[in-house]
């Protein structure tokens, strides 16, 4: 008991409180920290890079949640109960085991100017064949969300598969006997039964995407010109590239508050909505 508590206290709680403290100080790692009140936060409000960063972070949270969850649900529902379903799902699962850095290596290569993604658009006769996707904003954020989607769909499908296997089969059978099938069966029977699980999957995804770091850092380092930065990258850059630890801590605090508020607000809405139904 004691070792677990000590380890967690020393390496998780103490640093957390320290960052809280540093958020209101100016500190470069050499001279002693100097109390500056809210200056770091006021400076954030005037920082154009921070606004871009917040915009991108929200794009990540929304795009990186809605698309992968919807596609994951689609694949789970389509492949549920058909013969060889596991094999149909395999292509989506392969990417999930890759790390954020591995993902960035692959997609940095596909998305480079004149790379495979441009080729595909050209063959299909779609616009964007000449777009330098990683070099223009907000396209760079959008294509990275696409890469993330490619990785994330499989695990969402897996979660929904587990959900489909554990929901009661009687209502579905009954609806089938009454002649419901396809979309109507899904819309009126399966979807409501899956709702609690969907809440969890969306919640997990929101928390994770708000903290996106690896793929952005390895693909673009937040560039060019800080245009694809997200809050986690801004924090890292302020702290470990510019060595402004107080300012970096302030960004970390903003990220914590945003992530906390979003997940709290989301959960509360979902819970009250469900109580309304019951």
């Amino acid at each position, binding site marked *: *008991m004691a*070792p*677990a*508590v000590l*380890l*967690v*206290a*020393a*390496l*998780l709680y103490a*640093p957390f409180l320290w*960052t*809280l403290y540093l958020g209101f100080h100016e500190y470069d*790692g050499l001279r002693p920290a100097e109390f500056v009140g809210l200056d770091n936060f006021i400076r954030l409000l005037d920082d154009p890079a921070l606004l871009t960063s917040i915009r991108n972070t929200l794009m990540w949270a929304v795009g990186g949640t809605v698309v992968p969850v919807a*596609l994951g649900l689609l*694949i789970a529902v389509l*492949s549920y109960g058909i013969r060889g379903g596991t094999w*149909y799902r395999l*292509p*989506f*699962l*392969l*990417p999930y*085991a*890759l*790390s*954020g*850095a*591995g993902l960035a*290596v*692959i997609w*940095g*290569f*596909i998305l480079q100017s004149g*790379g*495979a993604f441009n*080729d595909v658009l050209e063959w299909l006769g779609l616009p964007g064949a000449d777009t330098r996707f990683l070099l223009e904003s907000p396209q760079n954020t959008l294509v990275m969300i696409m890469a993330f989607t*490619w990785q994330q*769909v499989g*695990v969402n499908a*897996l*979660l929904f598969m*587990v959900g489909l296997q554990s929901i009661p089969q009687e209502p579905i059978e009954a609806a089938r006997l009454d002649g419901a099938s396809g979309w109507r069966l899904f819309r009126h029977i399966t979807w409501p039964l899956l709702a609690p*699980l969907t809440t*969890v*999957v969306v919640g*997990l995804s929101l*928390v994770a995407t708000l*903290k996106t*770091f*690896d793929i952005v850092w*390895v693909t673009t380092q937040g560039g060019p010109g800080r245009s694809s930065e997200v809050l986690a990258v801004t924090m*890292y850059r302020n702290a*470990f590239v510019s060595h402004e*630890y107080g300012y*970096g*801590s302030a960004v*970390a*605090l903003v*990220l914590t508050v945003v992530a906390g508020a979003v997940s709290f607000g989301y959960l509360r809405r979902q819970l009250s909505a469900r109580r309304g139904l019951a």
Partner: protein
Amino acid sequence: MIRRLVLIVLGVLWLIPIYLLLVNAFRPPANYDGEQIWTPDPELAFVDNVRAAWDAVGLGPSIAATFLYSAVSPALAVLLGALAGYAIVVLRLRGGFWWFMFIFGGTVFPLQMLLIPLFVSYSEVMLYDTRTGLILIYTAILVPFAAFVMRNFFTGIARSVFEAARVDGASVLRIFLRLYLPMSLPALGAIYILEFTLIWNDLLLGLTLSQSDPVRPIMTTVSALNSAYAGTAIPVVLAAGVFVSLPTVVLFLATQRLFARGLSLGQF
């Protein structure tokens, strides 16, 4: 029929990046140019490419270090988590629920809240850029999840097991080692596999707390190889990416359902 068709079309779409990755990871760097990325090269140079990456950024020492972290930290975390769960559930530690909430609360903070103090204090106490330092922080971030699962697991074991063993005169520690630990091996194994993958794929802590090849975790090394300034040939970067992903890809495909369960009970 339509269901299968949609699945097949999407599946093929999903495999295209994998195809591109493999085809170009096997291509000799000399034959690589921007025009020919879609066709496989008759010459298979995967091993040479990995070797080139190995020499360029010290992949070897970095992989050795990462194996150490991914093997040791989850083992420590699982043991500490099991001990904590045992103390709370079986020994009925006073205020056990609050201790549990304290440990589990450790998962709430984003890593970003920890990085600066860790970096500053690690530099002070000479833990910066050491394997010990990384093992410590990895273990700390893994303990709450292990404690969470083990607490649930021990709750499911009948209390009479403990009481009978006490009556027979076994010590508390002996009961833990001889009875509870062996009983919970499946749960411990599941946590271990999930946490192994988590540590293997870490980038952020490695980036912040290490710099030299024998300490730096593998994803940090790969990202250095990938950076635009490194000037590494693309097939070499891709081959390195494939190579370092193999352990977790194999592990994940072998234990899919475990991951789904771990995910749905883990972070929430």
